[in-house]
């Protein structure tokens, strides 16, 4: 069989695990079609830390903590942990914020986009079209030679920043929850019990670290090399969630009335296009950034901080969409985001000799 089409079962198993975890977390109390969403959960975590004032999206999500810790433990256990960084950290910070801007325009990271499609939310199909278009633009720049400079090995402490930070967050959540903000209504108030969320996060963190599961890598590698390996993970998540939703009676096909979603097709498309393009430049989706940060990659840790910062900006300045739809400022910001992506993409093309 063609090497490029050969199924990598690790990725498929990781995909099935992500799908099952998402279903379980939704049953456990997370919002519908939001069993797992890296953008939403970072946004909620930013709110819990008081970085933004949107009262209905504040909760330090144990899933995020678990994902980083799971990846950390797995990377240590399999001798793949290495502290490294120094590859355009400031630009990665900006890209992290822009990916968050796009995701909050659409209302979901690439992972939640797949979960939404599996729940019958057809707005997310429009998002997928935009995501694919964004990835295609990013791949165009990769083919023309876009790259950030190489990263270098760094002292261990550098790679440990995010694993230690999330551990501190876990202590706060469990021992001093009153120091954190927590929504009493809205999406932030809907959450599974902490140990289920943390446990699911750790399991997925290990599985994603082993399998290199990445939502943007799937489409990117097909466009770039005709390699389907990562796309099988994407498909496995979709099929698992689809079957689960059908079995549980939570499959509600249509555009209107979907959970934490809006029906503005153009901006669903453009939001995910911005996220897709940004993720290709970052060489990984938000989930993958968390995993890499757990493996000791400080560039990814900076990207995660950029996403937190982006989430805070989006809510403080009213750029994030709601169930009612996008905001005028949000549209303007996404437009500026495309200009910034273009500038960053061109600025990192190889210089003509």
């Amino acid at each position, binding site marked *: 069989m063609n*090497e490029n089409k050969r199924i990598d079962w690790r990725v498929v198993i990781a995909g099935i695990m992500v799908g099952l975890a998402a279903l379980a977390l939704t049953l456990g109390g997370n919002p519908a079609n939001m069993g797992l969403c890296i953008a939403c959960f970072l946004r909620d975590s930013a709110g819990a830390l008081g970085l933004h004032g949107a009262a209905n999206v504040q909760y330090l999500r144990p899933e995020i903590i678990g994902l980083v810790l799971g990846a950390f433990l797995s990377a240590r256990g399999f001798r*793949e942990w290495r502290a490294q960084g120094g590859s355009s950290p400031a630009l990665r910070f900006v890209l992290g914020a822009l990916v968050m801007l796009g995701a909050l325009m659409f209302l979901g990271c690439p992972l939640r986009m797949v979960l939404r499609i599996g729940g019958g939310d057809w707005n997310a199909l429009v998002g997928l079209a935009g995501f694919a278009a964004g990835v295609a633009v990013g791949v165009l720049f990769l083919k023309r030679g876009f790259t950030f400079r190489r990263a270098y090995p760094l002292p261990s402490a550098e790679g440990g920043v995010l694993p230690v930070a999330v551990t501190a967050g876990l202590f706060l959540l469990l021992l001093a929850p009153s120091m954190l903000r927590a929504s009493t209504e809205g999406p932030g108030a809907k959450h599974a019990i902490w140990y289920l969320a943390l446990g699911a996060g750790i399991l997925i963190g290990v599985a994603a670290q082993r399998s*290199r599961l990445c939502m943007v890598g799937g489409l990117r590698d097909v466009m770039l*090399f005709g*390699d389907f390996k990562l796309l099988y993970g994407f498909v496995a998540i979709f099929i698992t969630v689809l079957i689960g939703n059908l079995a549980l009676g939570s499959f509600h096909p249509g555009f209107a009335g979907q959970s934490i979603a809006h029906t503005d097709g153009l901006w669903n498309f453009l939001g995910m296009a911005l996220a897709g393009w940004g993720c290709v430049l970052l060489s990984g989706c938000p989930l993958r950034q968390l995993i890499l940060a757990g493996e000791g990659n400080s560039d990814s840790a900076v990207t995660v901080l950029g996403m937190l910062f982006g989430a805070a900006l989006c809510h403080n300045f009213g750029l994030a969409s709601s169930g009612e739809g996008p905001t005028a400022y949000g549209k303007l910001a996404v437009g500026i985001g495309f200009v910034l992506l273009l500038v960053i993409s061109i600025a990192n093309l190889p210089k003509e000799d």
Partner: protein
Amino acid sequence: MVDARGYACPMPVIMVQKEVKKTNPQTLEVLVDNACSMENVTRFGRSQGYAVTVELQNSDYKLTLTK
């Protein structure tokens, strides 16, 4: 020799792809510093008809692609 240490995927594969397209070498040595890139370059090498061997050098991976 392609030295792709310090680059995240997909860069190492792109660098190898470029070299293969340009010079179509019978043998090609590739250095990467993470398991993910090692797996992906191996996969790409095989898809291009190369046999691939991997050896661990310090904490880096040296891949040898042979036709």
